[in-house]
Structure formats: C-alpha cells, structure tokens
C-alpha cells in the first residue's frame, strides 16, 4: 500500500525512475514536504479567502478595531515554522551527508568533463566516451575533474549531481539498484552546446559487468570503442559485431574514402554519421538511420549527400547481410555525444587553453 502510494506520488510529480539507493530517501522527504506545504498553502489561502469575504467592505469609512497579536500568537507564528523547517533540514542534511560520504569499498571511475563531452576511465582500463558502464548493487565512486570550464554531472534517475571543477577533483558516489541505461546531463552552463553535453550510465548486473570488464581488459579491441547500445548479457555479442564491422570495413577498403576521426574525406566521415540530419543534393534533409546507411552501401546514388562527388561503387552482392549489419553497427559505435549534427560545423570557439590538470 505504502509502495503504491509512493509510486503514485512519483508519477504525479513527474519524477524520474528510482534507480539508486538514494532515490527513495530523497523522494520520501520530497513527498512529505510536498504534502505538508500544499496543505499549509491551502489552509493559508482558505483562511485568507474566508477573511476577505467575511470582512468585505459593507460601508465606506467604517472605524475598525486595532488588532494586536497576543504573545501566544507570536510564539506559535515563530516557533511552528522554525521547528518544522529545522526538522526537515535535519532529515535532509543527514541524507546529504550520506550522499557525500563514499563508502571505503567503492569502485572508482575517473571522470573528465570537457566542452562538450564526458570521458570515463576505469582504473586498469578501459576508457569510455559518453557511456559509463557500472555494476548494479555495488557502490561506485566517481573522481571528477574538468579540462576547461565548470561542468556538472547529473544523473536524474540516481538523484545525484556534483559540479566538475577545473583544477580540482570532486567526488560523487552512488549505488545503482536497477539494470538499465540512464541519461547523464551537464547542469552547469558551459557554452554553446551545454545542452548537448550528454552521456549515459549503463548499469549492468554485477556478473555481466565483471565479464564485460574482463573482456575489455583482454585488449580484444584496439580502439576500445563500445557500442552505445550494449547492455547486460548482450554486451559480448554486440562488441564482437562492432569489431567485426571494423574488419569488414578494412577488408572492403571503406577507409580509403571514409574516415573515423571526424575529418571529411572523399566521402562523409563515419564519426557521428549515425542519426545525423543530412542535407541531400535534392535539398531534402534526411536522418542517417540504419535504413539509409544500408541503402547507401547498396545503392549509393539513391540519396546523395550534398557536397560530395558521386564516386562510390555499389556494394550490392559484395557485402553479405551480416557484414552490412556489422558495418552499420560499427558506424553506430562511432557516435560521440553530439546528437544534433545538422551539418559539419566549424568549431565556434578556439581551442581551450590547457589547464594545469590534465
């Protein structure tokens, strides 16, 4: 029953999922304060309306009595809010101390923020961009710093947030309780693409996480790129598909024209190609989703990207279906956090001065 009411409140208040050990405590205090303050507001408003109606002007220029507050009234008016507010503070501050004190057995991950991406480094590897894999039900401590300006690391579903400051390390810890993918947002204004400084936390079952970590550390993948869609038990398979896709690309000479470092070459770069809004020769703008990527391999001139020569051969019959799928999966893995690539843009600002901490 209590659980049902809590879930009802969570949905009424449009709160995100509760995916960490903190979430329930934070939300419970939220519900209590919400209900108490709403009742207090209703009483205050109700009393005001009753007084306004009861003592409405009946004739002009009447003489009104001088009303004084009694000592009792003053005592209640001061002490009730003080006691209630400080009680709430006590509960909230206790939770805050818990949230800011990482347990000794926490797994560390080093986090670096820079305009406009998140970089995660597991001690002893691997490194990840924009995706952070963590185990469920184990405390994780993030040691965070920034390479340029102040950012803030926010995972709504975990109810945690911490500024990431250049020149110093800040820490944040959590214990995820649900397997799944949870968005990370930057919450300290950091410039042009502040709103696109996104990442995600992938929470895996502990056993899956250990397997994933072991696999990564074997050095099976020279570039250590993880599929952004890898979760749980399917991780191994998908990672294999990505590296298979890379081998396919090498075998078929794709890299002669397509780069993976973001530079435009004879053909469009594959970095950030997936889901890019692409302007075609016809003036039409399409989204480069799986269907389009496959079509372009098989029938390159069906939809030609503006600004490129029509030199690509068709791979119909040269690529098998699994090979094409692996290629698509590889291209999908070359996504950074930028979801908005309307076209390839010049950098708006010059490179940032390197700070003392790198």
């Amino acid at each position, binding site marked *: 029953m209590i659980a049902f009411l809590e879930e009802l409140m969570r949905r009424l*208040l*449009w*709160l*995100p999922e509760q995916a960490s050990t903190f979430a329930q*405590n*934070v939300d419970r205090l*939220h519900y209590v*304060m919400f209900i108490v*303050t709403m009742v207090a507001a209703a009483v*205050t*408003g109700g*009393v*005001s309306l009753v*007084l*306004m109606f009861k*003592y*409405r*002007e009946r004739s*002009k*220029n*009447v*003489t*009104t*009595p*001088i*009303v*004084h*507050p009694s000592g009792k009234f003053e005592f209640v008016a*001061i002490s009730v*809010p*003080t006691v209630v*507010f400080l009680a*709430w*503070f006590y*509960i909230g*501050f206790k939770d*805050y*101390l818990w*949230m800011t004190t990482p347990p000794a057995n926490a797994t560390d991950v080093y986090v670096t923020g820079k305009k406009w991406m998140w970089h995660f480094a597991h001690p002893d590897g691997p490194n990840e961009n924009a995706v952070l894999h963590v185990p469920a039900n184990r405390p994780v401590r993030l040691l965070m710093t920034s390479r*340029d*300006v102040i950012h*803030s690391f926010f995972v*709504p579903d975990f*109810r945690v*947030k911490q*500024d990431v*400051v*250049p*020149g*110093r390390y800040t820490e944040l810890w959590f214990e995820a309780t649900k397997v799944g993918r949870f*968005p990370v947002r930057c919450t*300290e*204004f*950091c*410039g042009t693409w*502040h*709103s696109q400084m996104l990442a995600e936390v992938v929470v895996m079952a502990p056993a899956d996480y250990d397997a994933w970590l072991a696999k990564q550390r074997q050095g099976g993948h020279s570039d250590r790129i993880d599929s952004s869609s890898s979760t749980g038990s399917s991780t191994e398979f998908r990672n294999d598909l990505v590296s298979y896709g890379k081998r396919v690309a090498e075998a078929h000479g794709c890299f002669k024209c397509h780069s993976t470092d973001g530079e435009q070459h004879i053909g469009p770069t594959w970095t950030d190609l997936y889901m890019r809004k692409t302007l075609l020769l016809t003036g039409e703008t399409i989204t480069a989703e799986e269907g389009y990527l496959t079509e372009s391999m098989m029938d390159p001139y069906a939809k030609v990207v503006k600004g490129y020569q029509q030199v690509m051969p068709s791979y119909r019959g040269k690529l098998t279906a699994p090979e094409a799928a692996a290629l698509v999966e590889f291209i999908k893995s070359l996504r950074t956090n930028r979801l908005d690539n309307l076209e390839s843009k010049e950098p708006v*600002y*010059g490179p940032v001065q390197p700070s*003392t901490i790198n």
Partner: protein
Amino acid sequence: MDPSSRPQSTDASEAAEPQLPAISYLNQTRGLKSWLITLDHKRIALMYLVLTLVGFLIGGILAMGVRIEHLTPDETIMGANTYNRTFTLHAVAMIFLFMIPAIPGIFGNFLLPLMLGAKDVAFPRLNLLSVYVYVAGAALLVTSMATGGVDTGWTFYAPYSLSTPAELFPALMGVFIIGFSSILTGLNFIVTIHTMRPRGMTWMRMPLFVWGSYATSVIQILATPVIGLTAFITGIERVFGFGFFDPAKGGDPILFQHMFWFYSHPAVYIMILPAMGVISETVAAFSRKNVFGYSMVAYSSLGIAFVGFFAWGHHLYLSGQSSMDAGAFGIVSMLVGVFTAIKVFNWIGTLYRGSISLKTPFLYVCGFLYFVVFGGMTGIVFSTVSLDVFWHDTLFVVAHFHYIMVGATLMGFLAALHYWFPKLFGRMYHEGWGMVSAAFIIVGLSTTFIPMFFLGNMGAPRRYYMYAADGQSLNVAATAGAVLTAMGFVTIAIYLIYAIKNGKVAGDNPWGASGLEWKTSSPPPTENFHTTPIVDEDPYTYRKKGEEAEHVVI
C-alpha cells in the same frame, strides 16, 4: 493655490468634484532641461520610472524570445549562441536594470520624503547623480552585451567567463558602474530615514514601507561593493591575464562563486524587501486597518536583511564546498523562510476585522501572497540540501526564483504602481481594466512557471538550448503563459498612459488611506507640504479624530 487652504478631506467620499492643483511638481517648471537637472525627488522618481521600464521592456522581449525558442525541442527561431546570449541579456536587464532599482528608485524616491513629511531626501544632488550613473552603467551594459555577444549567463561564472571569446569587459564595467547608483540610493535613504523624520515619528511609528526601504538600503550599501569588486577583477583578469579565478594560473573558480553570491544572494532581498513594504502599505489601506503585528513585520525585514547575508553558500552546495558549509548555509536559509512566514501570517492577520475593498492594488496583494507562499515553500525544500542536490540548476530552480523575483516582486511593483498612481499623476486609472490585466498577469505567470516546476522534477536542466522531446508539451504551456502575461502588460501600458492625461481626477486621497503621503495634494507640490507635519498617532490609524480605539487581542 495653497493646498492647506482647501477643505481638509481625508476621504474620497467627502470631497465634492476633486480638482487638480494648479501648481504641482509636474508643472511648476517646464522644459526638458528642468527635468534633466531636477533635484526634486519626485521628478527623479519619474525618471527612474521611465528608465527602469525601458529595462523591463528589453528583458521582457528577450524573455519572449526564450519562450518562443522553446516551442520545439530543437532550433525554432535562433541558434545555440543566440539563445545563450538571449537568456543572458534577459537576466541582466531584468535584474540590474529593473528588479534592483525599480521599487527603491521609483517608489522609494517618491514616497520616502512624503511619508516622512520632509521636503526632499537628505542628499538631492547625490540622488540626481544616481540616475546618471544608472544611465551610464545601463547604456554600457546593454550596448556591450547586444554587440559583444555576452553568453555567460548573468552569473558570469569563471573560468567560463574568462575563456569565452565574447567581449565581456565592457559589460562587467557596466555592472561595476551601475552598482554605484544602487549604493548612492541606499546611502541617501539611510541618512534620510535617520535624520529627516518629522516630530513625533518615532522608529516604531514609521510606515512599514520605510522599514522595508531601510533594510534594503543596508544591503545595498554593504553588499554592492562586493559585486562591483568581483566584476572589476574578472574584467581585468580577462584583459591583463591575472590569475584570480583561473585554475590554470593558480586561481580559484570557487572563490568567484563565493564573491559573486555574497552580493547576489542578498540582492534577492534588495528586490523583495521593498515589495514586502509595499504589500504592508496596501494591505492596511484596503483593509482600513492597522498592520497586525507591526513590530514583527518591521523586525522581520531587518531579520531577512541580516540572515540574507549569511545564506549565500546555498548556491554552492554542489560546487565542492565542505559539507559543514552546506549545513551552516542550509540552516541560515531556513531562517529566511521563518521570517517570511511571519510576515505572511501578519498580512493575513491584518484582514481580520477589517473593511476590505477589492480594488486592483488589493488583487495584486493577493497575487503577491500566492507567489510568495509557493515561491517561499519551494525555497524551503532547497534548504534541506538533499533535495537541492536533485533540483540544483534544473528548471525547478528557475520556476522557484521566478515565483519570488518575478511573481512576488512584480506583484509588489504593480500594487505600488496602481496604489500610488493617483498620487504620482493626480488621476485615476480605469479600475475594470486594472482588474482584468491583474488577472491576466497572475494567471499568465502561473501558467508560465508551474510547468517549469514539473520540468525540473523530470530532471530538465536550466539554460538548455535543446531539451528532451518529452518536455515539449510543458514548454508549450509555459510559452502560452508568457503570452498571457505579455497581454496583461500591454493592457496596463495602454490604460495607464491613457490615464496620465485623461483619467478621472483622483483627489488628494482617493483610497481614504492613512499615511502622510495622502495628506498633501495629488500630485504634490514641489516642496511636498506647506506646513511641516507633526505625527501624533501610530501609523495605519483608521478612525476619526478623538474617537476611542477598540483594542482586540488574538
């Protein structure tokens, strides 16, 4: 015409066909020059009225730009950089050009000498200087921001503000200069209140608007130098490359935040305390009653001003300050809530056994109570720290401070504008249109900001150019609310400008209110009073001379 020779009427109903005084501060001298070099506090107040409303217009148009951009999750009408500049200039214009100077500059200047039965403020020349310092700072601020592309947010956080290619130096100097205007006004008010009260007006007989202005002035004098210093050294760090705040040079970006919020948190009370003073005046006038718990209301203003100085750290809960700091600042922030709650109880208590007439200013009082209660209670939840971690820098915060700074302060401003409009210009505005536009603005602001509370709960950060698609319906609702609000303001502008020339002549005291400012003609003569008033009764006395007061204790 000598006002003192006219029939002494304190109530509108007694005055037959009121006439405008032949000579008033508005027409005693003529010509542009007589306005530009005036030392009359009332004319200076009108100059502030025009200037701050220009600031409000700039801020308002940019607010609409932000709201229109957010009609869709991606680009609607502007690019990311334009968006960042738009919300920055919106905030700077609203805060530095309107919210901080508006009520003290306009109503403080106009009313303080009148409420104190004085001829002018203590330093009329300083008063005029404050206007021109304001103009210089504001002009520099707006032009440099419009042309230099300042995109840091109004908070100018280092090291972002040190590395952005925007032309930031002139804007920071604008903030530095405009601060002096605020300091001069505060200094003037404090000296005026200390030295120019009439015979018989003890501290506990001062109108509560004067108390509010006093508390505000203390903050203006003590806190403004710190923002001036912060803006100045950020500026010279940009130009000369000193390393005050840049960690790459051994500076500390958190130090910037401490210095910035040491002013900018008390600045919230510079904005709200004068509005609270206005509410005390209006709630008494429209209930025809003394303010319930006068001394509690007066002392709570000082209390807010005092604890407001020690609450700045609640902006830094997540910046990397110690947990001990977070706790101390959290407790102090709760005390602000206690003082505000005391005020709310006393305003509501004032209604008890009153004779309440529901006119436009009173409707704004109701709006003020609504915004201050909800804005205050959302402030309480931030002070619990653990909840703040979730809401910090989300749209929930945006909704919270717009409830206080826009909702409540604007309600105070509009209540003051309507309540004292007949005193300023001698004519009445149209009551029906007044009520309609008040309703539009209260409903409009709620429709704008209630969705933002929910967006914040969903985890939507502030200052986001693009947002997650599931927030679109709430964003569209917020934009619709902004349109309603704008319609309310356009209506107000039309009927008030019309009323300045063509409104019904108001008479000296159309509301039948107590208070010295109603005991002179409307508009007042340049020298305010012909005979120096003597105060022999408590403020907010609503009974005939010699009538025995009935005392009630609850």
